[in-house]
């Protein structure tokens, strides 16, 4: 009985959030695009044979040396590039790789950064200095340099690239978290929670963290776009682990060599990178509305 009413409440809240989010049509467009990307990832991850792909991990199964370069046509909607790669399946495969590697990078960077920034700001003094100077070190190194250095030192594969991107992007979150923690730490809210005898750890977990994380969550989607762009850049400059990895940036750089003969081989993968980045920015925008309790309460009153 109780479970049922809880479920109803959950559904009602969900539909309210959906209505707030889609009140701006641009946010809805972003949501639809991102849903397409996610659907592609899920299908290729669990049942790639549904859309006639046999091995989503590599491009080498797409090589069809008899075909050559063909313009976009009915048989090949996105056309083909040199060595006869069907660009449609290549792009679909590349989306999955990009999304699957970018999500863990963004989440790890956000958690690490928020944790470091929050602790630094809340403890203050010497802890603040040490932690923030440490993040400054990572902040000052361009991510491409970091990726080159680490893959040269350790090994050239996606795990190392992802971890170096985590190190490159966590300072961003550490700075966000630190600045909002500094505001919240000196706010009256924390004073009153101390006045009722709450311990430091409890204040940090129940009052500081939820208020800090709401600012970081809206940045999540933006960084997601940045990280996908970073992956593309890394592959574009030739740091992809091997020559048959389906990755949007790698496809772009691959097509660049034949741009005068087959411009679509550059334009189509870059179009998808742009779409992904735009849709994630739109979602980040919409997220800000959802995380503002004032907007939510106004909508709740309306319904």
């Amino acid at each position, binding site marked *: 009985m109780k479970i049922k009413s809880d479920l109803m409440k959950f559904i009602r809240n969900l539909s309210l959030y959906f209505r707030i989010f889609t009140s701006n049509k641009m946010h809805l467009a972003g949501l639809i695009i991102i849903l397409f990307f996610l659907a592609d990832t899920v299908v290729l991850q669990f049942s790639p044979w549904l859309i006639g792909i046999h091995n989503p991990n590599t491009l080498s199964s797409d090589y069809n040396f008899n075909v050559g370069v063909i313009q976009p046509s009915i048989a090949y909607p996105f056309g083909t590039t040199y060595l006869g790669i069907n660009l449609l399946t290549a792009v679909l495969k590349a989306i999955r790789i990009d999304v699957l590697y970018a999500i863990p990078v963004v989440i790890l960077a956000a958690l690490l950064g928020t944790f470091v920034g929050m602790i630094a700001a809340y403890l203050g003094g010497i802890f603040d200095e040490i932690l923030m100077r440490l993040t400054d070190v990572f902040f000052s190194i361009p991510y491409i340099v970091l990726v080159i250095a680490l893959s040269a030192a350790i090994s050239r594969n996606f795990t190392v690239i992802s971890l170096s991107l985590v190190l490159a992007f966590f300072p961003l979150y550490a700075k966000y978290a630190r600045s909002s923690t500094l505001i919240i730490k000196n706010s009256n*809210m924390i004073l009153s*929670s101390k*006045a*009722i005898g*709450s311990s430091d750890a409890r204040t940090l977990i*129940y009052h500081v963290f939820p*208020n800090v994380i709401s600012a970081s969550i809206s940045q999540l989607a933006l960084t997601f776009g940045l990280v996908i762009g970073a992956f593309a850049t890394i592959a574009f400059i030739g740091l992809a682990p091997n020559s048959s990895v389906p990755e949007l940036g790698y496809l772009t750089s691959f097509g660049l060599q034949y741009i005068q003969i087959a411009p679509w081989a550059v334009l189509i993968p870059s179009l998808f990178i742009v779409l992904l980045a735009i849709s994630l920015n739109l979602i980040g925008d919409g997220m800000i509305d959802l995380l503002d*309790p004032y907007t939510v309460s106004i909508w709740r009153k309306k319904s």
Partner: protein
Amino acid sequence: MEKKELVKVKNLKVVFESRFDRREILRGVDFSLNTNETVGLVGVNGSGKSTFAMTLMGLLPKNAKIVSGSISIDGMDMLVKSVKRGPYDRKSDDALINKGIEKLRGRFITMVTQEAASYLDPLLNVGYQIFESVLFHDEDRLIKRIESRDALNNDILSKYVKLLTAKDYNGADKFLDENFNIYVKEQILSIIRRDDLTDEDKKNLILALGRTRLNSFQRFIISNRSLASKIPGFSRILKRLLYEEGYRLAGEILGLMGLDTSILRMFPNQLSGGMLQAVMVASAIINNPRVIIMDEPASSLDPIAQYRLFNLLNKIKKNFDLSLILIAHDITLLSRFADRIVVIEDGAVVEAGDASDIINNPSNEYTKNLVRSVIKI
């Protein structure tokens, strides 16, 4: 009731230091508060009233330092020698810190501040913020309330209601003491003491206490709670039960204050300033503290809301056996609600005494000005 000194402050000196500057904010304040007493603290802006309150609560900012003096609360000395060095003054080993208060904060002594809106967490509903301090101070109270309500005997409850129907109040009180433990007693009393209910409603609510039973699974979790709190799924159910009880307790407090209990699940931005102030008061009194410090609780309220708030305080004082330290600029409000008034000027007490004496014959020039400044209608 016997009079006892709850708070005693002697010769308290506090300085604020910055890199270039050192200012004495409190220059030797003496203060005392007895049981069941309301003491008003008056002074203009910057006279050190709020610093005094923060010193009592041990919530001074980092650049402030207690130089000398003593604070004793409930007979215990609070101040100890600090081993920390001050941020700017290297020779501040002589500073005192209010160490003892950390255990009493929220239980024995709490504070209500001005502008409640900025003191509440915008992301949590007000009900949670009211009962939050019970969760970490007195979780056992919530468990015991659930357990003892579950074990209630309906026959005894209906006997008690019969006594109420017969208007045998002395007999009913005696019956209450003999048959129920304190956890059930506080729930029954919170119904009886409400003003906004008819006798019939009260009886129904009391009988309804016996009807809220746990199911056997919940009973199992409550009785094995140390084990259940370690298992992920079970700890969630336990937490949920505790939260439900917390909301119930918060609702009882709001009911006693004569407020609508439907605000429990609302968020701070949905309530008016006066309501939020009442929420702050409720969250302060939920652990049955003995002393509440009110730092200009009414300064952001309109006159009618101010009047309501202070009436509320009087009502709470009666129901919860409290002593109040009331800090305000406005001497007229204090004259209505305070037993004694202490006037602070520039960090020192210039006048102290019974409220009526101070208002009728102010001896100090500063107090005279304060009284004169009141607009008479």
